[in-house]
């Protein structure tokens, strides 16, 4: 007997919600019912197929059918109110319409709904993780370090916000990609690996929709994820790209990322994520930091700057110019940017150090540490200032 793991069960979530919606359930109620069915599935399935046929068949051979049946029953249970009873009886007569569901379309519709522009970013993220990712409210709350009650409210508000949205129209892919990008960037905390989850959801989206930016985002995530183990020292400290142990990069993920990216770039419809992925691919491709093709990286940053006005891009471009054409050129590129941008002082410190002005570099590293947006960067920058102040070389 094949055991079903939690990841497989969760991957069925959007299709099951879609099946309930097509049978007449509204999205919010369908989503609640499927969440309950998932929890039941995770509880009973490891022990093998349910012995009673009341649960609707063999979950191992037809996991989705089992979930649809159980979720539909949960939905009917939940609509017991008098006003709903008549409707339920109508629905019982209509159902069931078993057989293979149009799961790809259902899944896509859910991505669009959960990233609907009427939602705030944090609501869209939470709803996507629950309704598309099949995570429990508790897991999402733990990942974002908020109380479970708070996350439950955030999700139920999000569901109310999209309750009037038609389920059968395609939305804007860009909004979906922004949500997945946010999930990926949150990384890893608690027992849910959000970066891996973002990759799973983006891969699933890429399987259902033919769009070069979806592929670009998938490639970007794979190429960054490939370096994850080497970005953090055993003591939790940040390890910059140039000092990472390249022999520990995940070559399989890099190969897949490059392949996905090349196929996307061949379509000749460049977008922000493809350009970012191209830069990540050039880093991944360099056997040593010294062999990095900085000239090409600068060219990609120029492309990227034409696609987005992100200050992160402009700062990173100045770093790349500093590597390609020397620190003076990098400082000149930096001089064109607003000094109040986040990480401006950090980039200036690095370029001044490369230029040999250690006193200025030390002062700027300390200033950058003071302004750092997170602990890992603050500690890293403080150590750089301390290193220069105690007269040590890199």
């Amino acid at each position, binding site marked *: 007997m094949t055991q079903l793991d939690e990841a497989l069960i969760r991957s069925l979530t959007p299709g099951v919600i879609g099946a309930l919606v097509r049978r007449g359930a509204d999205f919010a109620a369908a989503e609640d019912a499927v969440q309950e069915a998932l929890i039941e599935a995770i509880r009973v399935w490891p022990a093998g197929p349910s012995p009673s046929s009341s649960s609707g068949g063999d979950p191992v051979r037809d996991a989705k059918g089992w979930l649809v049946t159980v979720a539909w029953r949960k939905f009917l249970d939940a609509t017991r109110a008098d006003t709903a009873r008549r409707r339920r009886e109508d629905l019982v007569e209509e159902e069931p319409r078993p057989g293979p569901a149009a799961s790809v379309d259902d899944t896509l519709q859910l991505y669009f709904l959960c990233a609907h522009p009427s939602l705030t970013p944090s609501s869209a993220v939470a709803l996507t993780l629950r309704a598309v990712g099949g995570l429990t409210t508790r897991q999402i709350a733990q990942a974002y370090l908020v*109380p479970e009650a708070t996350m439950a*409210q955030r999700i139920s508000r999000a569901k109310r916000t999209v309750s009037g949205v038609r389920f059968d129209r395609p939305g804007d892919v860009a909004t979906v990609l922004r949500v997945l990008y946010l999930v990926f960037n949150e990384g890893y905390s608690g027992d849910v690996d959000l970066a891996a989850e973002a990759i799973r959801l983006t891969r699933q989206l890429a399987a259902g929709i033919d769009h070069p930016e979806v592929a670009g985002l998938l490639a970007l995530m794979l190429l960054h994820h490939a370096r994850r183990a080497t970005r953090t020292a055993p003591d939790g400290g940040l390890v910059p790209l140039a000092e990472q142990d390249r022999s520990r990069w995940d070559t399989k993920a890099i190969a897949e990322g490059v392949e996905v990216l090349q196929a996307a770039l061949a379509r000749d419809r460049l977008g922000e994520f493809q350009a970012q992925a191209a830069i990540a691919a050039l880093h991944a491709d360099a056997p040593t930091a010294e062999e990095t093709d900085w000239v090409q990286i600068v060219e990609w940053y120029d492309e990227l700057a034409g696609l987005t006005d992100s200050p992160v891009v402009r700062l990173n471009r100045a770093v790349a110019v500093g590597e390609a054409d020397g620190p003076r050129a990098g400082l000149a590129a930096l001089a064109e940017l607003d000094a109040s941008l986040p990480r401006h002082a950090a980039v200036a410190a690095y370029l001044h150090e490369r230029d040999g002005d250690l006193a200025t570099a030390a002062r700027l590293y300390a200033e950058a540490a003071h302004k750092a947006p997170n602990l890992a960067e603050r500690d890293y920058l403080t150590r750089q200032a301390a290193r220069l102040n105690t007269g040590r070389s890199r």
Partner: protein
Amino acid sequence: MAKYLLLKHYRGAPAPVNNVPMDQWTPEEISAHVQYMNDFAARLEKTGEFVDGQALAPEGSWVRYDGEGRPPVTDGPFAETKDLIAGWMVIDVDSHERAVELAGELSAAPGKDGKPIHEWLEVRPFLAAKPSTTECTFK
């Protein structure tokens, strides 16, 4: 999706507009104030933005290590401490603007004569533990 600390001070903040100490309010004015704070927290729970809220006793002591095998040294409380924290609320919001908006609402809690206190609250962003995966210049 960023956490902020809203800090309320017993002492150390600039003077509020409606600057009458609580012991000179009527009992009804105190009840109205407490109700406002409770309602505010309840509303934040409903919007999915509430993380934590606590009040602190005004009196505490100072403690420090005093060497191997010795008990810690304690001192205080110091009545002259300039900055005295009364309590906090932790919120998880989409933007700095939203944090400021909520602090503004909290500062409008009613005081003497039922008029808003216009109390100064300190808004402090949390430092995340790690940089986001793709946006850090150094990794």
